């Protein structure tokens, strides 16, 4: 795993970081998802669960092939299925593997106020470092693709890591390895663009005049790219943004509001200090403590007790 010590970071949230100067030969990587080769088999989704030891809750059928029905803290990639009829009434079933795009200019990282909770490696992968995450959800607001999800259990933010653990030791991401039709490819970003070019030429030969590469410049390009048959209308693919953009709020927060925010923080610190001098430290009553204990040991504990009891009877 890359970290500061391995000198792999080129960006680190809420930190002024000077990237290491001597390690400038890192290859930028990219995952290329060719939706025209994808058969929606969900092998990638299952490999993601296997490799990352994720087992999201088994949901109900809710009138769609998307299962689970949305990304969640345990579902880092999700096949999305869109039934699309063109003006002539021709039906297409546009299937897209959804997940983190690993933006060159990551809105999540920009929005993140917790130092080191989100990092970008020199190879382009954007990774969440859970130990630094404070669960504020700013990354969710900052993401132009609506990807990160906050766990209600541990209040950490989760998303696809592009298998940074595998890539770090020279392996391809788990989804790439498992894809049976070669719809997911992985390599240097340059190679992936070349390959995409070939694929797009072939799709144009087959009559998809608007075939193209999705590598949106609005976020500086992405390290997960799509070959789309309808690159002129990305939103057909279950709402892939036509022109992704980082929320203006993030710019504001990191821009002109930043001094104001810092001033606010300073004011809070000073007020706290003054409050403790004037009124003494905050104290809790015994009732407060009891209530807190009850909350901590809440329903989860008692639930486990019940089932054990029944099983043994």
């Amino acid at each position, binding site marked *: 795993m890359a970290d500061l010590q391995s000198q792999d970071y080129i960006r680190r949230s809420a930190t002024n970081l000077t990237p290491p100067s001597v390690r400038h030969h890192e290859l930028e990587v990219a995952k290329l998802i060719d939706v025209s080769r994808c058969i929606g*088999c969900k092998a990638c989704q299952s490999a993601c669960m296997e490799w990352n030891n994720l087992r999201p809750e088994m*949901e109900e059928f*809710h009138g769609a092939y998307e299962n689970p029905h949305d990304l969640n803290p345990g579902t880092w990639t999700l096949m999305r299925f869109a039934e699309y009829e063109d003006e002539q009434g021709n039906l297409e*079933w546009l299937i897209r593997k959804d997940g983190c795009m690993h933006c060159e200019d990551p809105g999540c990282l920009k929005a993140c106020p917790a130092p080191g909770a989100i990092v970008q490696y020199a190879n382009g992968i954007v990774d969440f470092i859970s130990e630094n995450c404070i669960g504020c959800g700013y990354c969710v607001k900052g993401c132009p693709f609506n990807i990160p999800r906050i766990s209600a259990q541990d209040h950490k933010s989760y998303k696809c890591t592009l298998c940074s653990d595998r890539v770090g030791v020279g392996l391809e991401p788990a989804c790439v390895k498992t894809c049976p039709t070669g719809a997911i490819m992985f390599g240097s970003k340059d190679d992936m663009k070349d390959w995409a070019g070939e694929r797009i030429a072939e799709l144009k030969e087959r009559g998809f005049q608007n075939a193209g590469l999705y590598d949106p410049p609005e976020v500086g390009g992405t390290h997960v790219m799509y070959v789309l048959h309808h690159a002129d209308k990305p939103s057909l693919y279950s709402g892939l943004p036509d022109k992704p953009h980082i929320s203006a709020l993030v710019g504001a927060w990191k821009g002109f509001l930043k001094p104001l925010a810092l001033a606010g923080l300073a004011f809070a610190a000073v007020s706290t200090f003054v409050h403790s001098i004037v009124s003494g430290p905050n104290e809790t009553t015994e009732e407060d403590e009891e209530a807190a204990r009850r909350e901590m040991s809440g329903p989860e504990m008692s639930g486990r007790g019940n089932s054990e009891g029944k099983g043994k009877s």
Partner: protein
Amino acid sequence: MTNTWQDIKNANVVLVMGGNAAEAHPCGFKWVIEAKIENKAKLVVVDPRFTRTASVADVYAPIRPGTDIAFLSGVMRYLLENDAIQHAYVKAYTNASLIVKEGFGFEDGLFTGYNEEKRSYDKSSWDYELDEQGYAKSDDTWQHPRCVINLLKQHVARYTPELVSRICGTPQDKYLEICKIFASTAAPDKALTSLFALGWTQHSVGAQNIRAMAMVQLLLGNIGVAGGGMNALRGHSNIQGLTDVGLMSNLLPGYMTIPKDSDVTLDKYLETKQFKPLRPGQTSYWQNYRKFFVSFQKALYGDAAKAENNWAYDWLPKLDVDGYDVLRAFERMDNGQMNGYICQGFNPMQAFPDRGKIRRSLSKLKYLVVIDPLDTETANFWQDYGPQNPSKPAEIQTEVFQLPTTCFAEEEGSLVNSARWLQWHWKAADAPGEAKPDLWIMAGLYHRLKSMYAKDGGAFPAPILNLSWSYADPAEPQPAELAREMNGRALVDIKDDTGAVVLKAGQQLDGFAQLRDDGTTMSGCWIFAGSWTEKGNQMARRDASDPRDAGIAPNWAWAWPANRRILYNRASADLDGKAWNPHKPVIQWNGSKWVGFDVPDYGPTVKPQDGVGPFIMNQEGQGRLFARGLMVEGPFPEHYEPFESPAENVLHPKVKSNPAARVFPNDRKAMGTAQDFPYVGTTYRLTEHFHYWTKHALINAILQPEEFVEIGEALAKEKGIEQGGWVKVSSKRGQVICKAFVTKRIKPLMVDGKPTHVIGCPIHWGFTGVARKGYGANTLTPFVGDANTNTPEFKAFLLNIEKTSAPPAVDVAQGPRDAQGVPKSLTKVGSL
């Protein structure tokens, strides 16, 4: 498959009809994608639903379930009308020129010789006119009105584009577009591959569906060539192996057949098997049947099979009916004629039609033995699981034994894939708990039966007492021992014509050509001869190299027969032995022998000018456009409606459904009509699950958690059904309450002028496993099978659908209990 998975990449057109390769065979489907990208192939999908295969197709056309013969007969008509056939191939390699007997005919939906009472045919008129030497007469000029090609033209003439569209509901323009794509592969250097599966087999006309397509392929010259063929994609790992070793009620290993009770002697039996050539100089390889059969008897009975006792022929069972297929077995159970049932490695409660009948039949048994790695619905049929399995345990006396077995990853052995490759695999993990290998269980049963016969006698102990059983550990024969036995070995020194010893006594055979009919060789399954030779286990070979990138890796595993990867590959070359497609040759004549990427399916030194046909198993040496008497319902395919159908048979209203299919009287009463059940139902699999197994696996359950049906938007609107809302789906046989998926991918079809709605029923959910509980789609399906094979008609039947509310939740306290009376769901808590 006649060809291989990799060979699909050589196709110019890939037709997926009667299957859904992308969803059911996602790994093999990579070769379709390869064909598209590397060979610029067109992918054509014909299916009642717009499937995930259709999502990557170049052309998709909808079709009403159960009307494929009409579609394909129309294609044949198109090819013949537009002269889009590969003439030289059809003339030389098919029976197009052979002359059919006078007296053969077809009228009002029936071929000559029909007996309505018996629902079967006297097939004597379905044959060739023979000359004095017993050879079929032929007219290469195709002038004779009764030569096969003219009879075929006449037979398919009725299937005009208008009629095809009227029966199938396929829009005419789409249909004609597809006909044109088919026709493009009549060129000698172009090939179409047909990928199909249960979408063709699971019909009352299943075998004829496949024949119709095989005939199309013969007309186009697409059999035996690279990128062509008839490619059945098998649905279970090792269902191919199951048929190869004859695990059917009417088969012996290697596609030999169990004798009928009329075959009173060995000679009488062999008379019907050792087919003499019907054209001069033909191979007619089944002439060697006696060698295969005697060697099999030697494997079964060892020294006890002798010339004096006709190789123990009398010890084999003799069939008094066509076969004891699963439908007949459950019919007998239901009638009290079968009291015990050993159910090894399958799950009838989920997998067989009309679940109510299956549950009722199992309830009448004295005992049921379930041998399976999983806790199946069948083993639990007697338990009350609420609406999904409303049994009354107090009223059921069946004693159930569950014998847990190892699964494929917990044992070594070979699996035969769709491409006929025997691939050896190695044990990966120990089995949990008390699970034992099937071989250990079967050996235990055998030894107990044998000692009981030895002690108590019995009506007919010889077949059991004399079985050969020479394994190192008699209590647990090893897969390797059985594999060596199936390959076969020499029992004495085997000499060639010059007297030189080819094989010493005890040595493994090199191939089936070495088999003898004098008791000097043994082989448990002649088509597997060559899989484990003196050179070792050929199935364990793992050299993936594909010389010249031809889609053939001859040193990866081992393919039957004789490591041949493309069957009938002599047909890939023209009459002079040159490849029809010079860019993709398979085998060619080099002046003295046949050479190429593959093992010739032909005499390796037989000269092209000798005129030996490429279809060496057939008596004519030719591919059959006219099947003679080999099919029960006719030598040409004909469109018959499914047994439950919303439409009349517009071709012949009096003969609506397959006239030769067997229907038991009670099952006929359980058939519904379009008046009560106006919609067409069809069942299928989803890519997220494997049959009824993976609902026991959490990841698969997460990916498709709950039972649902798929319906079109128009039907949903008509019935007020919401997206994801609860519906009650019913047939005359039962009902399923589940969620509805309202989709654009199923559209009403205009059938005979009437809009016809299709309801799609995925099959995967039941009442055991970790996925949400379901009723099982086979609660709805009819109890009738294909006339030839009795494969149930799961793909086309009648349904009704209504909006409803959720079924009552099962109260666990009232649910199934174990022997101690503890609710079963609680005894399974992991912490115990």
